[in-house]
C-alpha cells in the first residue's frame, strides 16, 4: 500500500509480521569470469522463454540487457589498455578466485582490460515499480524482495518506465508464450527462498561472484572486500547500491564494480521517482484548481 515515508525495513513496512532477515545479492564483479552460468541457471529454473538469439557486436554479450525474459545479464566490457592507463584506472582485476591463481588479467597479453559483471533486479528498498503498480501485482515479500504476481498483473506497463535501472519489462512473444503481455523480472527465486534454498544464479556461480544471504551480513562482507581491493591497489573498486542513504534507500541486490556504474550500463545516481510524488500531486492540485477557476471565469456574464 501507500508509503510516503522511507524505511529501512521494507518487509515490516509492507505489513509482514515476524519477517525473516532481509535477503539479497552481493555481486562481486572483480571475481566474475563471464561464464554466464547465472544467466542459464536463471532461465532454466524460472522457465523463461527464449527471447532472441542475435549477434550484438558487444564483446561476448549477445544478451544485451535485462528484460522480461532476461533476469540475469552478464555485461562484458573490453577497455583498451592504453585508454585504461591514460584514464588513471587500475589496469586489472588483480585478485583471482582462488589462492595460487593470482594471475593478472591486466591485459599484458591481450591489450585490454576486460570487465564482466552480472546484472540483476536491485530489489530496491524504495521500489518505484512497486509504488506505481496500479493493480497491486508487484508486491514486497517477507524477504524484503519485490516480485510480480503473474495472475494479477494486467500488463499496464507503468512499472517499466518507472524503474530507474531499466530492469522490468513486459513479456513479448507469440500467443501462448507463458506470461506474455505481463511485466516480468527477477523474483530473487521467491519459490526457492521459501524452501530455504539459494537462488538459482547464486547456486550456479562457480566463483562466488554472486553471493546470496542476509543483506546486513552481505553489506559487511562487501565492505571488507572493497577495503581489501583498495589495500591491494585497486583504487577504483567501488560498491554500488550498498548505501541505505542513496536515492533508492539502498538496493537489496548490490554490486562491487571496477569502473563507474554507467560503464556497466547502470545509472550513476538512481533516485526512486516517487520521492517527488507528493510535490507532483501538489502541482497537479494547483493546476486542476486553476482549470476550475478558469472555467468559472469563462461563464461570468454568460447567459442566454
Amino acid at each position, binding site marked *: 500500500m501507500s508509503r510516503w515515508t522511507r524505511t529501512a525495513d521494507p518487509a515490516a513496512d509492507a505489513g509482514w509480521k515476524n519477517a525473516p532477515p532481509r535477503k539479497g545479492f552481493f555481486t562481486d564483479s572483480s571475481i566474475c569470469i563471464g561464464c554466464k552460468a547465472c544467466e542459464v541457471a536463471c532461465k532454466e529454473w524460472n522457465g523463461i522463454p527464449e527471447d532472441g538469439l542475435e549477434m550484438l557486436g558487444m564483446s561476448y554479450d549477445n544478451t544485451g540487457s535485462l528484460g522480461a525474459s532476461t533476469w540475469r545479464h552478464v555485461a562484458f*566490457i573490453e577497455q583498451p589498455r592504453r585508454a585504461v592507463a591514460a584514464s588513471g584506472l587500475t589496469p586489472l582485476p588483480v585478485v583471482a578466485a582462488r589462492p595460487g591463481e593470482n594471475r593478472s588479467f591486466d591485459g599484458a597479453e591481450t591489450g585490454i582490460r576486460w570487465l564482466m559483471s552480472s546484472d540483476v533486479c536491485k530489489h530496491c528498498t524504495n521500489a518505484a515499480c512497486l509504488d506505481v503498480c*496500479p493493480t497491486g501485482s508487484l508486491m514486497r515479500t517477507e524477504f524484503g524482495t519485490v516480485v510480480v504476481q503473474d495472475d494479477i498483473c*494486467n500488463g499496464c506497463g*507503468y512499472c517499466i*518506465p518507472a524503474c530507474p535501472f531499466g530492469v522490468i519489462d513486459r513479456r513479448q512473444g507469440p500467443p501462448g508464450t507463458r506470461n506474455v503481455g505481463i511485466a516480468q523480472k527477477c523474483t530473487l527465486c521467491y519459490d526457492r527462498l521459501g524452501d530455504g534454498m539459494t537462488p538459482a544464479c547464486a547456486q550456479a556461480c562457480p566463483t562466488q561472484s554472486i553471493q546470496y544471504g542476509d543483506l546486513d551480513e552481505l553489506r559487511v562482507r562487501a565492505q571488507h572486500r572493497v577495503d581489501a581491493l583498495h589495500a591491494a591497489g585497486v583504487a577504483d573498486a567501488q560498491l554500488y547500491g550498498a548505501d541505505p542513504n542513496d536515492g533508492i534507500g539502498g538496493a537489496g541486490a548490490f554490486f562491487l564494480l571496477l569502473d563507474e556504474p554507467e560503464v556497466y550500463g547502470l545509472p550513476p545516481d538512481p533516485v526512486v*521517482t516517487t520521492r517527488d510524488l507528493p510535490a507532483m500531486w501538489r*502541482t*497537479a492540485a494547483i493546476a486542476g484548481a486553476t482549470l476550475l477557476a478558469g472555467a468559472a471565469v*469563462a461563464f461570468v456574464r454568460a447567459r442566454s
Partner: protein
Amino acid sequence: MVPPATFASYYGRPIVKTAPWERDIPAYLFLGGMAAGSSLLAAGADLRNLPELRRVARIGAFVGGAAGTAALIHDLGRPMRFLNMLRTAKPTSPMSVGTWVLAAYGPLASAAATAEIAAMMPRRLPIAGRVLALSARPAGVLAAALAPALAAYTGVLLSDTATPAWHAARRELPFVFAGSAAASAGGLAMVGTCLEQAAPARRMAVGGAVVALVMEARMERSMGLSAETLHAGTAKRLMNASRALTAGGAIGAAVFGVRNRRAAQVSGVALLAGSVCARFAIFEAGQQSARDPRYTVVPQRDRLQRAANA
C-alpha cells in the same frame, strides 16, 4: 553547469526502458483532457441555461471519456484483466488514482450525455426519459467536479517515471495538460455551437491555449538537458505544429470567432489539433529521452558533482 561533452555508457545502450505504450496513451491524454474540459463547459452551460453549448459539451465529454477508456484498455498487455485496476487504490500510483477518477467520472459523464441524446430522439421514453432528465444536472455537475483531476493527473502519470524528459517536466506538465484540455474542449464546443452560445467556450479555449503555451515554454527552460528531446526529430515537428495550431486557433477564436461561425469552426479544429500534437510531442520526447543514455547519465553525473562540491 555545462554538461560534460562525453559520457560513458554500455555500448550506447539505453539505461532506463521506454514505456511499452503505443499511440493509445498519447491519444488518451488528449481524449481524457478534452472530455474533462467539456464536462466543465457542459456544467457551466447547464447552470447558465445555454442548451446548445451544453449538448455539444456533454456529448463531447462522453465521447472523449469513452474513447479514452477504450484506448487505455486496448493498450494493456492483458486487456481482459482491466478490472484488476480496481482491486486496490494506491495514492503512490498515479495510474491507480487516475483509474478511480475515470471510473467515477465515466458513468456520470455518460448519464449526462445519455439524457442529451434521449432528448434529441423523436419519441420520448416515458419513464427512463424522465429519470434521465432529472439526473442529468447532478450527474453533469459531479462529472465537472471530477474533471480538473482528470485533466491534471495525466501530467503526474508521465512525470512519475524514470523517463528523463517526463520527470524533468514535473513542475509544469500538469499545467500544460490542463491548459491543453481547456483549449481542446473550447475548440470542440466552438465547432458545434452557434456563436451566441459559444462565448464561454471561446474564453475557455483562449485561456487554456495561453496557459498551455506559456507553461510549455517554461517547462522547456526547467527541463535541463532533456529539453533537447523536444528540439529534435518527431517531437520537434509535433511541438512546432502544436504551438502554431494552438496560437493560431486562439487568435482566430478571439478575433474572428466572435462574429464568423466558419472562422470559429476553423479555429476550433486548430485548437483540437494543437492539443493532439502537444500530447504526442511530449510523449515522443519522453520516449526519445529514454532511448538515449545521455539523458540518464549526464544529469545524474551533474547531480553527483554538485553534491560533491557542496
